[in-house]
Structures are given as structure tokens and as C-alpha cells.
């Protein structure tokens, strides 16, 4: 008697390959062979993230936008591009402030953020991130305030340099934040995720520059946007390829929809940025910002989906056990 046998009319089955809805697309190269998959009534193995949209994907997006904008702002200031510098600095401060609002909203109460500053732990990307934000936020604020009011230019310049020094870390650390979990689509992608995140941040910051700065000042923003989009798309493709079956949530479900939208917006934004002037350039800047946001939403929802389906937890682990056992018996 095979334990594969399914009694008709009975929905709850254990110890059988459950015919889940998500099927592998035809022609796609699976990384692991179709392992016989068993689960406990199809229930998830891990408890999925309790983080909510738009708070957390917004937090990821705004952190990237802010961090990369601080770099753009510092560069613009150094090269005498006043309007671009102003836009990038105020954009950075606005984005980081909103991201803090999103984080506090997800925590429930503002004083809960302070609990994060009780300790400093390198084993916790969230702890590292809280300290980073505490250092970066005021610097970005001072840089923006000085740029807007024109007062204390020396302090403003120092804050601009300081914000640019912390900015890349702010843009990149959120990749470790999501990867340092048992969520398969996030954890397994830890090699590419930081490049994806800084690329996404750079294309958003470049997009902001294209949107806000006049034509004569926007060349570096255009270059940064093109660089960021290429890095973002390259890292995502590489990650999907390497993850094989675990990457399925990146092209199916809600995550897949957002990432497809991101791809289209990104392509349109890149084309517009490279060729367009005037309103086309401004529109393409907005498209690039939207593409960056859509990428984060896509990554977020794909992670949630991969946590929900026990297949993504069990199959790779089972594969690992089998490979290890074969290695032992042959070696």
C-alpha cells in the first residue's frame, strides 16, 4: 500500500505529496529534482514575518532612497550643483524621517524604539540598524536644514559629509535585516540581496535627482540611476537563477506582480532617463522611484509567500540531508 494514496473527499492529508497550487513553470530549470515532499497538513514550518505592508517594505525602500540620496547630495555639493544638492539632501532627510515613522508604526508605540538602544549587538542587524539610524538621521537632518535655510554652511557641509559616510550603510544594512531570518526566499538570497538593495536605492536616488533638478545639473543623477538600475536588475536575476525552486515566489503571486511592475517601470525609467529631456526626464525619474519601491514590495511579499508554504523550507533542507548522507556513504 502506497502512502501516496489519497482518499477522495478528504482534504486534510499528511505524509503525502500535497498538490499545491503553485506549479513550476514549464521549461524552467529546477535547482533540485522534484523531491517527494511531505508536510504536516500543508501547514507552514516557520512562523512567517509579522511585519506589515506598507510599513516594512516602505521602510526598506525609504532607507535605500535616503542613503543613496545622501551620497548624491554630497557629490552635488562638491561639484557645485546647488539645486540637485538641495533636492537630494531634503529628499534624504524626508525619506529617513518617514522610514522612522513606518518603523514606529509597526512597533506600535514610539517608546518601543528606545528599547532598541538598550544594547548594541552585531548579531542583530536590527540593533545595528537602529544605531545607524540614530547616527545618520540627525546628520541628514542637519544637512537638509542647512541646505534649506542657508544658515551655518560649515556645519551643513560637515553634516553632508557625515550623512554621505553613513548613507551607504543605511542603504545596505536592510539586506542583512531581511536575510538574517529563516524565511527561505530572503535567507537563501543573502549573497545578492545587499547589491540588489543598494542598486535599488541608487536608482531611486537618481530618480529623485532627475525629477527635481534642472537639466544642467542632472547628469550625475542620471548616471547614478542607470548604474543603480543595472545593479538592481543584475542582482535580482542572479539571485533568482541561483535560488532555483526557492525563487518561485519572486515570479508568482503578489511578489511576482510587484517585481514584474518594477521591471517595466525600471525599463521605462531607464529609457526615459537616457534619452529624454524636460518632462520625459522628470517622468522617468518618478518611474525609477516607483520601480525601486515596487522592488521592495516584491521582495517583501515573496518572502511572506515563501514562509507560508512548507515546500520552500522542507525541499531544500531534505536535499541537503540527502546530499550529506550520500557524501558520507561514498566518502
Amino acid at each position, binding site marked *: 500500500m502506497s502512502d501516496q494514496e489519497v482518499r477522495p473527499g478528504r482534504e486534510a492529508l499528511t505524509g503525502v505529496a500535497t498538490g499545491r497550487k503553485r506549479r513550476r513553470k514549464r521549461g524552467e530549470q529546477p535547482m533540485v529534482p522534484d523531491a517527494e515532499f511531505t508536510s504536516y497538513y500543508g501547514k507552514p514550518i516557520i512562523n512567517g514575518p509579522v511585519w506589515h505592508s506598507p510599513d516594512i517594505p516602505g521602510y526598506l525602500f525609504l532607507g535605500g532612497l535616503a542613503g543613496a540620496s545622501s551620497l548624491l547630495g554630497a*557629490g552635488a555639493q562638491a561639484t557645485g550643483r546647488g539645486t540637485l544638492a538641495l533636492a537630494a539632501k531634503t529628499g534624504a532627510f524626508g525619506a529617513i524621517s518617514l522610514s522612522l515613522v513606518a518603523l514606529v508604526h509597526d512597533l506600535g508605540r514610539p517608546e518601543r524604539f528606545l528599547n532598541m538602544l538598550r544594547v548594541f549587538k552585531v548579531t542583530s542587524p536590527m540593533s545595528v540598524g537602529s544605531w545607524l539610524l540614530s547616527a545618520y538621521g540627525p546628520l541628514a537632518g542637519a544637512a537638509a536644514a542647512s541646505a534649506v535655510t542657508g544658515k551655518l554652511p560649515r556645519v551643513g557641509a560637515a553634516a553632508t559629509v557625515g550623512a554621505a559616510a553613513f548613507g551607504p550603510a543605511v542603504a545596505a544594512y536592510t539586506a542583512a535585516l531581511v536575510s538574517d*531570518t529563516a524565511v527561505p526566499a530572503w535567507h537563501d538570497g543573502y549573497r545578492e540581496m*545587499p547589491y540588489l538593495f543598494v542598486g535599488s536605492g541608487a536608482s531611486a536616488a537618481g530618480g529623485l535627482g532627475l525629477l527635481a533638478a534642472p537639466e544642467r545639473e542632472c547628469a550625475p543623477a542620471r548616471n547614478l540611476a542607470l548604474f543603480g538600475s543595472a545593479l538592481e536588475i543584475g542582482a535580482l536575476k542572479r539571485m533568482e537563477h541561483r535560488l532555483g525552486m526557492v525563487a518561485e515566489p519572486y515570479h508568482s503571486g503578489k511578489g511576482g506582480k510587484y517585481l514584474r511592475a518594477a521591471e517595466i517601470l525600471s525599463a521605462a525609467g531607464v529609457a526615459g532617463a537616457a534619452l529624454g529631456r524636460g518632462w520625459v526626464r522628470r517622468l522617468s525619474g518618478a518611474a525609477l522611484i516607483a520601480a525601486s519601491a515596487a522592488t521592495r514590495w516584491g521582495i517583501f511579499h515573496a518572502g511572506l509567500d515563501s514562509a507560508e508554504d512548507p515546500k520552500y523550507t522542507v525541499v531544500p533542507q531534505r536535499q541537503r540531508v540527502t546530499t550529506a548522507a550520500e557524501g558520507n556513504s561514498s566518502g
Partner: protein
Amino acid sequence: MGFFTDTSVCIGCKACEVACKEWNAVPEDGIALTGMSYDNTVGLGADTWRHVAFIEQRKPISRQDSGLHHDTDVLAMAADEPSTDFRWLMSSDVCKHCTEAACLDVCPTGSLFRTEFGTVVVQEDICNGCGYCIPACPYGVIDQRDGDGRAWKCTLCYDRLGQGQEPACAKACPTDSIQFGPLDELRERAQNRVEQLQDAGVADARLYGESPDDGVGGDGAFFLLLDEPEVYGLPPDPKVTTRDLPAMWRHVGTAAVTLVGGALAAFAATALGGRK
């Protein structure tokens, strides 16, 4: 100190679930029937710190007997009659109190700590509800309580241990399926039990989470299972999520440098290319 849960003698009475709730004053988490099996708590969560899994399997078992006919020689019956093709597996799941605990590692507030008994406990007055420990747990144990926002899980009855008592679930277990004690003692007992079962023809009997060399440095709560771990809703080869963290930080560092390089190049290109 830790748990050894011998699922081969679990009778699915749920006394452990009830004792845990009563002792720890864990709120009710919805009194609903799932219709899925006798399991109505479904899995571990903020308000379910012990969970009894019920698995109905079409798999041969070396005979289950009601034990009602005391006049017969059950051993002779087992030898004579063909085995049935249906079996129940029951297993009481709990927080594994990992030696390398991802929840503890990623907690940004220091709310989770390692006790003097080697167990992992959440301090509810410090937890800020960030929820990071929840997806970090490779076993899906810790969870967020509705309307509270903070994370809760088994404390291995930290308060009872301090008084020299055993945890409520182990105390309540009528079949000694849940055993509590020093880990090395439990591991030895478990090894004897699994050998005894395998000698009796239960080839599928195996220990889960007992090895200090596994992906989480060994579990403070380990199990004797009668099938693959995933059948019980357990991960086959869990790894502490922070094991890859050094590599993650390296990639984050390289990515940050890449971003700086990209920004520098973006400005350099305007100077070199003569573009405004």
C-alpha cells in the same frame, strides 16, 4: 536542563497543552474546530507553547491493539496477524531551546536571554514587539500575541525550575512521553529507547535534535520520532539563521562600497564625458 519528548508513547491527550496554559496563564487562542484532524491548535504560537500534532497515516504499523481482550496473548497475535495499513502518530511539540538560538541572536533589545538552566526566555517587559525573532526561528516556535504585539513562547517553566520543580507539561504527562532532566542524561535515555524500538522492529524510530553537532548546536528539547521530521511539521535540517551572518555583513560591506563607487563614477563620468 531540557526536554526529551518520546512521541512513541504519546497518547495525544493534550494534558501538556492544558497544563502549560494553566500554569503560565497563557490566554486562549480561539476555541474553534479546524476539521483537519484532532489537532485544533494547529501549531506553536504566542498562545500555544505546547502543541500536540495528530498525524493520520496510511502506513503499515506493527499492529495497534485496543488492549481490551485480556485473555489473548498479544505478542502471539502480533506475530500471527498481518499488520494494519493505518496508523496514528501523535507528538507534543515545544520550543527547542536551541544551543545556538537565532531568536536570541537577532533580538535588538536584549529581551531574549539565556537562563542559568541553558534555556531561552523572553523578558516581556523589555520586548518591544519588533517581531524580528519570529521569522528568525527555524522551527516556527515564537510568535506575536494579538492585541499585545510582543513575542511569546515556552519558558521551559523558568519559574518552576527556580523552585526545583519540573515544567508543568512534563509533570502533567501521564505516559512520561515528556521527560525533563539534565540533557546528557536524557540523551542517554533516548539512545536506549530508540535502540529498544529498532530492535522491536520499528525501523523508522529516530532521534531528532539530540545531536550537539546539528545546525543549531543541539536542541534543549529533542524528540524521538517515528517518521521523517517534516511529517510532524518540523524542519528536516534546521540551521541557525545567524550562522551565515558574517558572510551577510561582508556582502553588505562590499555592496556599500559598490554604492560609493557607483556614486563617484556617476560624478566622474560627467567630468570626463564633458556632459553638463
